[in-house]
């Protein structure tokens, strides 16, 4: 528990240093945020075009999809803010042998890697996500129950845990194979399945996305919670997140033993 608290403190410290560092270059900082908001806004617009020019998604109205898109953008932003830098950091560190430095710090190395993941660019998606979600709330007249907020918080925590697990799998592969640049794209394409409501997929894929790789916890279930049409699948998804995280830690420690460092 002390280690987790220490890592959280370190995360906050790294985050402050990351922001301070980014603010040194003001032009880059400001344009970065604007570009990020602009790029993030394209997603909902494409979805809007798709929805209005096709038959849309079964069981989803335009405003419901707007809410889904708002939450999706919010999740993208949060994910990038929290751990957006990890992939670049680990690849660079392992390749150059700088990963040694993490092994000399009194914390779990994977925790330190995740701590170094803060990426300010995610702020743009967050802002865009909040705007689209507020608009969807306004158009849908969403009612908040007593259990809505706690459930959303649990879903958010499990979503973060699942994303941490996926990031840890990625880092484990890098530790083992050192240079595998396009693995990042593979991970992205797989997680892209979460960009659409789970109920549009065939049953087998739906089971995978709820139980084994429970991406549904990122956007699909939070949207369902707000729309008050939750199903029991969420409990499988929450448990799945913890399971995948446990597995990722096991794989990490196995791969860490194979770390060979770089020449001295």
């Amino acid at each position: 528990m002390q280690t987790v608290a220490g890592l959280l403190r370190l995360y906050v410290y790294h985050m402050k240093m990351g922001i301070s560092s980014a603010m040194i270059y003001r032009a880059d900082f400001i344009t970065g945020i604007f570009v990020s908001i602009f790029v993030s806004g394209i997603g909902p617009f494409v979805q809007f075009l798709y929805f209005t020019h096709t038959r849309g998604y079964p069981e989803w109205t335009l405003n419901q999809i707007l809410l889904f898109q708002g939450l999706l953008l919010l999740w993208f932003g949060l994910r990038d803010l929290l751990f957006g830098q990890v992939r670049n950091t680990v690849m660079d560190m392992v390749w150059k042998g700088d990963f040694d430095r993490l092994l000399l710090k009194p914390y779990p190395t994977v925790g330190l890697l995740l701590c170094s993941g803060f990426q300010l660019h995610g702020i743009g998606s967050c802002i865009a996500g909040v705007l689209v979600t507020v608009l969807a709330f306004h158009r849908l007249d969403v009612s908040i129950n007593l259990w809505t907020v706690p459930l959303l918080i649990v879903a958010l925590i499990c979503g973060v845990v699942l994303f941490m697990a996926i990031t840890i799998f990625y880092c484990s592969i890098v530790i083992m194979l050192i240079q595998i640049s396009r693995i990042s794209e593979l991970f992205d394409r797989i997680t892209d399945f979460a960009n659409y409501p789970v109920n549009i997929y065939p049953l087998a894929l739906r089971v995978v996305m709820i139980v084994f790789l429970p991406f549904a916890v990122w956007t699909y279930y939070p949207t369902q919670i707000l729309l008050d049409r939750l199903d029991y699948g969420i409990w499988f998804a929450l448990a799945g997140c913890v399971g995948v995280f446990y597995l990722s830690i096991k794989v990490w420690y196995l791969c860490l033993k194979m770390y060979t460092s770089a020449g001295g």
Partner: protein
Amino acid sequence: MDEIIIKVQGLRKTFKKLRKKEGFLSSFRSLLIRDFERIHSVKGIDMEIRKGEIRGIIGPNGAGKSTTIKMLSGILFPTEGTVDVMGFTPWLDRERYVRHLGVLFGQKSQLWWDLPPIDTFLLIKEMYRIPEEDFKARLNRFKSMLQIERIIYQPVRTLSLGERMKCELVCAVLHEPPLVFLDEPTIGLDIVSKETIREFIKQMSRDKQTTFIVTTHDLADIENLCDRVTIINKGTIVFDDSMERLSSYFSNRKVVEIKFTQPVEEKLLDSYKVISSGAMSVSIEIDTGEFDLKKVIFEILDRFPVLDVNIMNIPIEEVIKHIYSHEEKVVGYGEKVGVG
């Protein structure tokens, strides 16, 4: 200084490395078929290091120094052997062990490039949970010892190499670890910065009984800092003894530096083993097992217009060059055992 804090027995490390022939076709072939070879980087090292000691570890490139240090610091798992550092097995108790360890890699930085060093120091304070009072006291002490009062508030990218290295050193010792590994701490530095860093290390060792393990290619570091030196070559220890022993390694060979009052013809010196010569000076090597040193000196004084004579041991560079090139293992206090 009698307490042994590092005990290494039979340490070995074998790496599996890709072997690729030259050329494009070979690259293409290696996509399908890969040849690996087993490289024995460390082939059985035994070593003991005492508390408060400054130990130099030297060896030619690829000798196995860094691999040994990486195993001692818990970065790499060994293939075989045992290591006990302050009661810890580094690679098994890594998280607890590294709390008591400071490391400086001369060629790698842990300072945040765009921020002043003070921000990295504060991060280290947070990481090692250094109490505020201790942090302030230590930082003030280090600032005056290394003369970095002003530079710790300037962005790292604007600092010189020497200034950065001093800050890296602070990062390594801010939590006052009892054991510090320094990997090439003076690489690329000017003579003044080198001297400041060496003084800092000596003072830390004196005041806090900190044990330092220094790997370097700069023999001045070894001569100015170390109590004992371990030479590693081809994965094994070939010398492990005090600096005095290393300096007098060729105890039966002396170098005599002679300055003349007027130029001396070269051919007159033909009967001596001349190492170097100038218009008004010469250095000759004398094998004291073969010749009587006193007699030779008197002969020189008698034959030549001598202004000054200086008798020295064989320079340490020559000793080390000899040890690197001859696989002759020196065990303990001067006992020689041929291994190759």
